[in-house]
């Protein structure tokens, strides 16, 4: 039978990094307490045995109440394990020894890894692992998961710990006391038990950890004086975010052109000649439908890759916790907290992980309100739609400002939504806001690469099926019933567009754009592909055509609608599963739709009156 080990530890002790180190696969690495929400697992060889490694969410102790702590408890209640691997932050041993002591008391097989030894060395902190091991009664190895220090010792320790382990049955780590019974006497008792463990932990850390009398001032402290500054902090933060988005834009554009060029080359020299003899309908379907749609979408992959590389750096740097600090004063007035703001920002990559990230919040009300506002984040899929349309219609000097205005509107709609809904009984929360502030860290290239690669491959895997089926569906709707002129009024798509006109006409959104919007409901990745099929043009030709057939006001109104209405089916599905409420999911679709319609309507009517467009 194959063996199983689980990584268990406080948030931000380097569990994800360790998991990557152990398995070579890539889990999500984030310098944000509790970001690891999925249970990642991988099979590796330890001492000739196949061993499954599971990465559990970060928890503060076995008695907690957050969703993450419940996930961990459920896992431990149901799964038999051979070994618990507990990474600790070497710099915080004074408070991290309680968890391994709890586990040791239960007599479980545990291997303790004192992680971040590189940082401890820099600060001159010396740790006597033998004294620790003796005090805990558990094997202890010092490592740096990030830089690979102590790898060999860790492997050896894993091997011998697995050899002597008798295994632990499901539920062994969660005896009755831990089922978090809410009654006050049990609660008091737990706190008292923890207090006695705490004394033991404190004594142990005093005897095994040697901290210099005067810690050298950390680089982090100096940086914080600037980046968390009461006046400069926020402007600097927005500047940094602007640089990220601008960097993605400027670096991405040439790459995008290169991608387009490659696809055109393939089309001209391979696809078209090969299909020269095929029947007209098939050729149209493959070249104009499938390939045209796909190549237009593929041109945006470099931008998405870049975006995730940048976000990996920002996320791992620890800056997001500072953002939470800076923004909390504002967010609390909206009924949210600093973390909601950070999730909102994560949503700029993709709404789906951002919505899952709200699990770190304990109060359901706060989670729901956060989940309601996150879909307004201008995600990378919407970004590609906007990049295309802005590139086609606006002068290069205007382009960044148009894009910036959309980002600002994205915040504005999110904040407005929070303001409107925060008073409702379902969204009012008394969740405390207490989070850890990690030091600044520079991710290694390996971390950035793995993270970026992971996100992109996830994105492509998740999106490619939807994109292909979306593009095919659009082609069919625009070319059937057979014999009609593509996307003309007689096609199915034309009929739907026509039927929706009374609703969308007043927004300046014509029949063809309506069809694109309908497909955008499935996924924004499909919108440009759909336009390519609808106009049976692609790349530059499509851009030219759109520039010729739309006014700037119409284009902006279209983008507004795209920005605000439902992000995509995957987001809706995630909201539904995370909130466990169909009613809430319906609200999360209906409200943005109404808001999108209202905003585009007002914008289009006012702007075309004023500017005579």
């Amino acid at each position, binding site marked *: 039978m194959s063996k199983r080990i689980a990584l268990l530890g*406080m948030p931000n002790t380097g569990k994800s990094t360790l998991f990557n180190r152990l398995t070579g696969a890539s889990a999500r690495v984030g310098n944000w307490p509790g970001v690891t929400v999925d249970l990642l697992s991988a099979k590796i060889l330890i001492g000739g045995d196949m061993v499954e490694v599971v990465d559990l969410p970060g928890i503060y102790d076995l008695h*907690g109440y957050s969703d993450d702590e419940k996930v961990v408890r459920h896992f431990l209640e149901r799964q038999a394990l051979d070994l618990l691997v507990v990474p600790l932050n070497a710099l915080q041993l004074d408070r991290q020894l309680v968890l391994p002591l709890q586990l040791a008391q239960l007599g479980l097989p545990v291997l303790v890894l004192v992680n971040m030894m590189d940082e401890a060395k820099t600060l001159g902190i010396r740790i006597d692992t033998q004294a620790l091991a003796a005090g805990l009664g558990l094997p202890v190895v010092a490592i740096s998961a990030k830089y690979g220090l102590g790898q060999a010792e860790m492997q050896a320790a894993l091997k011998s710990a697995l050899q002597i382990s008798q295994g632990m049955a499901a539920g062994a780590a969660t005896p009755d006391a831990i089922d978090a019974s809410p009654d006050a006497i049990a609660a008091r008792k737990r706190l008292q038990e*923890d207090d006695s463990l705490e004394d033991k932990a404190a004594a142990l850390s005093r005897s095994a950890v040697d901290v210099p009398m005067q810690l050298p001032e950390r680089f982090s402290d100096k940086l914080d004086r600037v980046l968390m500054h009461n006046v400069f902090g926020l402007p600097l933060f927005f500047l940094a975010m602007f640089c990220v988005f601008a960097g993605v834009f400027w670096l991405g554009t040439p790459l995008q052109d290169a991608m387009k060029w490659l696809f055109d080359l393939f089309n001209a020299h391979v696809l078209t000649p090969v299909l020269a003899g095929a029947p007209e309908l098939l050729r149209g379907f493959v070249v104009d439908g499938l390939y045209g749609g796909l190549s237009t979408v593929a041109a945006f992959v470099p931008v998405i890759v870049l975006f995730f590389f940048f976000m990996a750096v920002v996320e791992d740097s620890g800056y997001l916790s500072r953002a939470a*600090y800076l923004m*909390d004063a504002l967010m609390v007035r909206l009924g949210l907290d600093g973390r909601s703001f950070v999730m909102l920002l994560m949503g700029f990559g993709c709404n789906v992980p951002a919505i899952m990230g709200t699990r770190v919040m304990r109060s359901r009300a706060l989670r729901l309100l956060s989940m309601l506002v996150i879909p307004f984040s201008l995600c990378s899929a919407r970004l590609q739609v906007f990049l295309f349309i802005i590139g086609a219609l606006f002068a290069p000097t205007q382009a960044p400002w148009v894009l910036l205005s959309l980002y600002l509107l994205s915040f504005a709609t999110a904040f407005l939504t929070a303001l409107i809904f925060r008073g409702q009984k379902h969204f009012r929360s008394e969740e405390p806001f*207490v989070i850890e502030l990690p030091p600044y860290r520079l991710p290694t290239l390996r971390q950035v690469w793995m993270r970026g690669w992971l996100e992109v491959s996830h994105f492509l895997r998740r999106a490619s099926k939807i994109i292909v089926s979306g593009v095919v569906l659009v082609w069919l709707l625009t070319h059937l019933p057979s014999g009609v002129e593509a996307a003309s009024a007689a096609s199915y798509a034309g009929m739907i567009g026509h039927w929706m006109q009374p609703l969308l006409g007043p927004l300046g959104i014509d029949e063809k754009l309506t069809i694109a919007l309908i497909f955008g409901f499935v996924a924004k990745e499909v919108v440009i592909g759909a336009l390519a099929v609808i106009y049976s043009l692609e790349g530059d030709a499509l851009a030219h055509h759109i520039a010729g057939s739309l006014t700037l006001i119409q284009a902006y109104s279209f983008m507004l609608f795209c920005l605000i209405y439902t992000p995509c089916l995957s987001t809706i599905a995630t909201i539904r599963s995370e909130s466990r409420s169909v009613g809430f999911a319906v609200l999360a679709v209906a409200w943005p739709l109404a808001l999108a319609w209202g905003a585009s309507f007002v914008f289009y009517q006012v702007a075309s009156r004023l500017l005579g467009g």
Partner: protein
Amino acid sequence: MTTRLTTLKPGNSAAITAIHAAEALHHRLNALGLRVGKQIQVMRQASFHGPLHVRVGSTDIIIRRSDAACIELRAA
């Protein structure tokens, strides 16, 4: 004489004498190292009545003022 964490000036530190919080918050504070007897230092306060940045031992924590109000300190 006791005072509240919210009244401690940035740069100053004091010992925690009591934590008056509901159990869940109490637990979370303990896990983060905020315990009776520990020395706590206020690093800075965010503007617009925003949260506090405090340090206990080697751990830096952000805590909202309304939550910080439950922490009682020995006045210097």
